[in-house]
């Protein structure tokens, strides 16, 4: 196996969580980051429909239709859980109170622009809370395949798809590599390669400009 599996990507992203963090996990692979959080640190997960302190999925007996996450999945409470309205929930997000959000992406540009909400010509489902998350959360990590189904790079010089946010991404974890930048004025640098992948491989399969 060359590259990281989805599980390995989620596990790597989980290593970015810190003790005391409030974190919002996007729908899909980002949700599975919760399975890899170091038990030695204390992290509170937020769901933008209005829950702070997400628990695990319920047992059959625990299912409550009034306790769902932003992916509309049934979940459970913890001893720390609080419920808020959507306005208060997005107040946490837009007010910069959430430390970290981990999201999926269709494309990221070398300037940190993110596109993950629409493809022109296809059915548009809407941005949901993604635009609010990238605009308000302090640090944004993207999990995505390194290339799309046609083999085209997803970390690009500029996004070809409509943006979710401009200059909002801080770290990119792909199936093949990890890129990071220290702040939003800096360029991305290649920090890690997945097993069996060399820096030269990454250069050949990436359109974006980045530091080695």
């Amino acid at each position: 196996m060359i590259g990281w599996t989805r599980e390995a990507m989620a596990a790597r992203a989980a290593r970015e969580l810190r003790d005391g963090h409030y974190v919002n996990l996007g729908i899909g692979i980002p949700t599975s980051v919760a399975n890899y959080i170091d038990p030695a640190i204390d992290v509170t997960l937020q769901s933008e429909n209005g829950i702070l302190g997400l628990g695990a999925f319920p047992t059959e007996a625990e299912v409550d239709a009034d306790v769902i996450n932003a992916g509309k999945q049934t979940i459970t409470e913890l001893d720390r859980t609080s419920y808020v309205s959507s306005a208060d929930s997005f107040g946490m997000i837009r007010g910069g109170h959430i430390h970290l959000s981990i999201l999926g992406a269709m494309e990221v540009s070398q300037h940190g622009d993110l596109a993950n909400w629409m493809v022109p010509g296809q059915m548009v489902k809407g941005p949901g809370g993604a635009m609010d998350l990238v605009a308000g959360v302090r640090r944004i990590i993207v999990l995505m395949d390194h290339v799309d189904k046609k083999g085209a790079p997803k970390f690009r010089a500029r996004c070809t798809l409509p943006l979710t946010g401009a200059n909002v991404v801080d770290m990119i974890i792909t199936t093949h590599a990890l890129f990071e930048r220290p702040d939003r004025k800096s360029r991305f640098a290649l920090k890690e390669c997945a097993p069996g992948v060399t820096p030269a491989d990454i250069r050949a399969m990436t359109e974006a400009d980045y530091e080695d």
Partner: protein
Amino acid sequence: MVQKIYCDAPAALDGLLHDGMTIAAGGFGLCGIPETLIDAIEASGVTGITAMSNNAGVDDFGLGKLLRTRQIARMIASYVGENKEFERQYLAGELDVEFCPQGTLAERMRAGGAGIPGFYTRTGVGTLLAQGKEVREFNGEPYVLETGLVADLAIVKAWKADPYGNLVFRKSARNFNPMAATCGRVTVAEVEHLVEAGDLEPDQIHTPGVFVQRVILATRNEKRIERRTIREEAA
């Protein structure tokens, strides 16, 4: 005492519905949606509705029912991914849609209900959803102007109400309901439990009765679950 409790949904909506009206609805996905009132609006036959709601339900449930009957002409929503009939009407140009980021939608309802006609937010700056909107810099950062929303009618679902229209929501079924309740010129609440005056703890009321003009006991509480995710019981 002003009588806010109505005997059923048609009685509570009497005189409030007209073609071309705006309706704000609470709910996230199928959680915390006013099921009983949506059924009554469907039965009324009112058309040309502009609906303000985070989602559009699914094909046979929630606001999806009013899409199926072509009663909704325009939607202001953040995410509509679970509805085939919505998709068909939208792609055929039969339905007008204004996409709004989820937090911006919640804030637009909150602002409209609080008498605030507009506010600036960083959400959406540099995207298609900011096109044609004023952008202004604060402390060197660009923010986009969004407008408050006011609806002819707001419909919400709550867990409990007292005769004064004070509401308490339950868990994540709260979501957009408190903001929707404030932004209706008239707000009708359907509730799972009607309680006596004094039974609600004043410190625990989420939406005070000033925002709620009419209340019914919900007769439909299906509370359909979109994604039933289960963990195996530990042995």
